[in-house]
């Protein structure tokens, strides 16, 4: 063995520095936290949800039904295998960091509409090994069900539990089938895609249209005159787990 220990360690150290140096520098070049991202050109879809308006409708589930019916989301009986794109979670589950020992009556245990947040910095997109999920220029975190290999890494990465996996063939659990939208097959992950196929035709998302209380407002963040922007200007809104730096596009009026 003619390589001396010192030479080996020195070479290994320099190689490691060379290989990782750029990545390390890039990491420092990322924007520091708490600074807003530069306003992107073009559209930036977002949604503002008013939980109080939703709660006034009581047990209404029109948005969930519209979403799941339009997109052939199966109703799986076994809860551990359930598939859901949009659903109601108790307030403490939707906003775990806001838990207090003395919660206000109006919010304690109340259901809040939760869905994929279409984050600006989505961890699910970062981890997908095949780019079966990616962030579009208009802000939508999109899914390609042809490419998904079902590794469920995106489900591990999502901090909000927004994604569902098809543990079995979903078709037997479909009460009705919308022929204008595909079902999915077993073995792929799925989630809300902000009705991108409807947006392409100039229609608002199905849930927004179905809500009788207009509790969900959808619009373009880059348009200062949009309803979402005016709501964000005039009301105090929160997002889920903002401390994680994901920068969700779903805002909740408090």
């Amino acid at each position, binding site marked *: *063995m003619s*390589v001396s*220990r010192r030479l*080996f360690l020195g070479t*290994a150290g320099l*190689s*490691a520095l060379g290989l990782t140096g750029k990545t390390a520098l890039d990491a420092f070049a990322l924007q520091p936290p708490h600074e807003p991202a530069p306003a992107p050109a073009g559209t930036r879809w977002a949604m503002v949800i008013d939980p109080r308006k939703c709660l006034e409708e009581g047990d209404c589930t029109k948005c969930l039904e519209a979403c799941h019916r339009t997109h052939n989301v199966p109703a799986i009986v*076994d809860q*551990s*295998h*359930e*598939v859901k794109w949009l659903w109601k*979670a108790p307030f*403490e*589950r*939707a906003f*775990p960091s806001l838990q207090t020992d003395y919660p206000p009556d109006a919010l304690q245990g109340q259901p809040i509409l939760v869905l994929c947040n279409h984050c600006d910095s989505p*961890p699910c997109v*970062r*981890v*997908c*090994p*095949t*780019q*079966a999920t990616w962030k579009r220029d208009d802000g939508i975190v999109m899914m390609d069900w042809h*490419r*998904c*290999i*079902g*590794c*469920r*890494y995106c*489900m*591990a*990465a*999502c*901090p*909000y*539990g927004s994604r*569902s*996996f*098809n*543990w*079995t*063939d979903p078709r037997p659990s479909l009460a009705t089938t919308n022929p204008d939208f595909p079902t999915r*097959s*077993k*073995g*792929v*992950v799925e989630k809300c895609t902000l009705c991108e196929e409807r947006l392409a035709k100039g229609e608002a998302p199905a849930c927004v249209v179905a809500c009788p209380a207009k509790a969900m407002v959808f619009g373009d963040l880059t348009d200062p005159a949009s309803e979402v922007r005016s709501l964000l200007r005039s009301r105090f809104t929160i997002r889920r*787990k903002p401390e*994680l*730096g*994901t920068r969700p596009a779903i805002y909740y009026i408090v």
Partner: protein
Amino acid sequence: MFMFEKAVVGGRRYWTWVGGLLVVMGLAMLAYLRQLDVGLGVTGLSRDVTWGLYIAQFTFLVGVAASAVMVVLPYYLHDFKAFGRITILGEFLAISAVTMCMLFIFVDMGQPMRVLNVLLYPTPHSMMFWDMASLGGYLALNAVIALVTLSAERKQVAPPRWIKPVIILSIPWAVSIHTVTAFLYNGLPGRSFWLTAILAPRFLASAFAAGPALLILLCLVLRRLTSFDAGREPVRKLAVIVTYAMLLNVFFILLELFTALYSQIPEHVEHFQYLYLGLHGQATLAPWMWTSSVLAVASLVLLLVPSLRRREPVLAVTCGMVFASLWIDKGLGLIVGGFVPSPLGAVTSYTPSLPEVLIVLGIWALGFLMVTVFYKIALSVREEVAAS
């Protein structure tokens, strides 16, 4: 080719062992066909606990595969001659372990026929891409090294000079495969159980304890069942390595416990609470975790007392305890603990189903079969050389 003809010659004990492994593999194949047909719903996984036994086995076995470096590094970099006779055993163990890793990932895929998409659409920002690349490279490296060195030994010549840099490359590569595996977990902002910088060192420490422990057991088994005797010194030195690695591993776990329990941040505390004490009335994993801890401490005591460490029957039991303890910790606790409680605070229990367990056993059987076949080849070559 590849001296496989040496593996089809054996006595009754050999064929009984191989036959038993093949039966387990056959049952696993049937279970996997069922999983292909019905989907991953045949496992015990759920919307909240999306990774379980399969990925946990993969995580544990990457460590075992990386541990070959613990034999290669002292011998090739530090001229520690005592390990000269067992480097081939470490390399063959690495090949088998990496194959098992890749199989465990494969059986976990929802759409396994599309798995090549990872190579067709390379995604450098995904750690899973790098994991596949590094595992593939490590497999190739060890296969080449084992084949070349064993062929040279058979021909009773020195191996070609170009193999030296390849062997040296396998050393940092071994460290990198387990670091990348840790990166799969510790870059996820929503999983606070895994979001710790110490995960990679923890992985490496437990790998360098579990792998050499298994290697010691394999050496002892070989001494009992075959004419191959690794000698006392390699086994003793491996035991010292296991001791230091296990000490580090237990130390790291205590460090993790301190950070979680002293900071009292619920997101950090709750995972440990679920694992060791139970949460919301569900404590499925608590007996396992406590067993793992007891085994870890007990094995440390047995390892730290030199007279006990040197007595090989005791050492065999100790190595079994180390392996079992680390398997529970990494092969069960780490993965499931990351998913419970869920990002929404839900506590979902995970119990592997029968098909899932059969598939796991089948892949382990395949790994043991590979180790058996490879070791048979290596030993036959050595006997052949010794006889000439």
